[in-house]
């Protein structure tokens, strides 16, 4: 009995791993993904000179390596998030149209195996892309500014949770609404998340808080709707900013990481369940 269960689990894992590997191969054969990587190479080529520049703000000289490392980290993380959304938005439609779903699901494969394989493939594929790009940037920082930043790749790994959320959200939404709308919706959620995080950071500044108290902005009783919405909003920006504090000499606070990480993981679970429910009802043609 036990041996049978273990054997069945092994088979399931092997099937999901096979489907994930095929997803990665198929995605990286797409022309749009190749174009994206060409754009990334061009971006890195442009960025290589920035490590030699000097940056002065209010007459104070800033560390070029730290500034450029942070900027490139965020640009690559945001870019790969967009790539993950682009890959995820068309996966169901493309595989329905080219017959992939029919040939896979006419085999002894459960729908959740197929779904798990697709999600794992997209997530691992985009995470590997982000790690590779961040790895190249890390190497560039070392070669140009002789700076070693061990936290760079750890931060990159933490940001991969954001990629999982993006993949799940776009896949789940594309089961109910047109693909491009699913992509735009997640783009909107991401933009609001980053702007909201910036506003939240500014609002925590003591000067801003005292200004708000003087103007009576916090005088209202109860929780305003926008504050409640923000608490429940996916914290993509918060997680990325918290992860980026691992880079360079900034002080890293584990406390600041926990809240957005838990938020994103909870969203992943909910969206994963929605994806499963939606795909279980899909008609295969």
């Amino acid at each position, binding site marked *: 009995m036990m041996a049978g269960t273990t054997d069945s689990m092994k088979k399931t894992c092997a099937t999901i791993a096979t489907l994930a590997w095929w997803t990665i191969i198929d995605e990286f054969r797409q022309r749009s993904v190749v174009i994206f990587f060409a754009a990334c190479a061009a971006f890195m080529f442009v960025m290589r000179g920035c490590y030699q520049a000097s940056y002065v703000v209010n007459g104070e000289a800033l560390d070029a390596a730290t500034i450029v490392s942070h900027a490139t980290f965020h640009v690559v993380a945001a870019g790969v998030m967009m790539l993950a959304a682009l890959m995820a938005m068309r996966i169901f439609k493309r595989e329905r149209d080219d017959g992939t779903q029919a040939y896979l699901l006419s*085999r*002894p494969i459960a729908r959740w195996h197929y779904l798990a394989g697709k999600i794992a493939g997209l997530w691992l594929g985009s995470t590997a892309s982000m790690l590779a790009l961040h790895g190249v940037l890390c190497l560039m920082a070392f070669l140009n500014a002789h700076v070693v930043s061990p936290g760079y790749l750890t931060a990159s790994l933490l940001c991969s949770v954001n990629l999982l959320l993006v993949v799940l959200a776009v896949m789940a939404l594309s089961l109910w609404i047109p693909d491009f709308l699913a992509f735009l919706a997640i783009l909107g959620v991401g933009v609001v998340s980053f702007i909201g995080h910036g506003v939240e950071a500014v609002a925590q500044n003591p000067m801003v808080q005292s200004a708000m108290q003087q103007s009576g902005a916090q005088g209202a009783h109860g929780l305003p709707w926008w504050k409640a919405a923000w608490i429940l909003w996916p914290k993509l920006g918060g997680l990325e900013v918290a992860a980026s504090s691992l880079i360079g000499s900034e002080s890293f606070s584990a406390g600041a990481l926990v809240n957005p990480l838990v938020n994103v993981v909870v969203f992943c679970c909910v969206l994963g369940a929605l994806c499963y429910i939606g795909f279980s009802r899909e008609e295969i043609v």
Partner: protein
Amino acid sequence: MIEFRGVTKCYGTLTAVENVAFSIARGEYCALLGPNGAGKTTLVRMLLHFTAMSAGAITIDGLPVSDPHSRLAIGYLSEQPRIPAQLTGWEYLKRCAQLGGTGSSGIADDCARIVQVIGMQGREHEKARTYSKGMVQRFCLGAALLRDPRLLILDEPTSGLDPIGIREVRVLLESLKSRGMTLLLNSHFLSEVERICDTAAILNRGSLLVKDPIAAIVKENETLEDVFVRVVSGS
């Protein structure tokens, strides 16, 4: 082998399949016949659990079709055969064989054998986007025959083929009969059906009109086509 019990499928107010009940025994070659829109493809899609039933039950070897193990030894050829454009015919066959659920040994040998059977030697390493409709049809039929399935479900297997291809498919299906394979054939080529199949299930407007041995329903001086027209127009 296959049992349909009171199978019904509704799309909103439209009933595509209504209370269909029949069974197909092991080793039986059964033709699924009916005019366009009779519900044949819907029935096949429910058999593969591609679409959910509104009512009833379908089992394969006693297993409900919702159980993926019921598809362990099924070969399926879709009504619209397609191969992802980025794959070669060989890659497609290999992928299908890998997911057959019968282990990974001998996959390459099996694929090589199938390439011979479908007559595609020398073209198997070309991208699918360069294949004609008939070539795609052949590779998809090959994929259905991989790993020696016990049940073959073929939806219009000769629709894109030339006369030689049609003849080859017929000869192939006749040769598989001796191995005890079960066949569910959905086709409009009634002369081919008459030569290959043992029984026929005729559907019209979602209902099963008849399911009997072809020899019993085709009377003297009659063809299966005559029977088909008589049964469908009389329903």
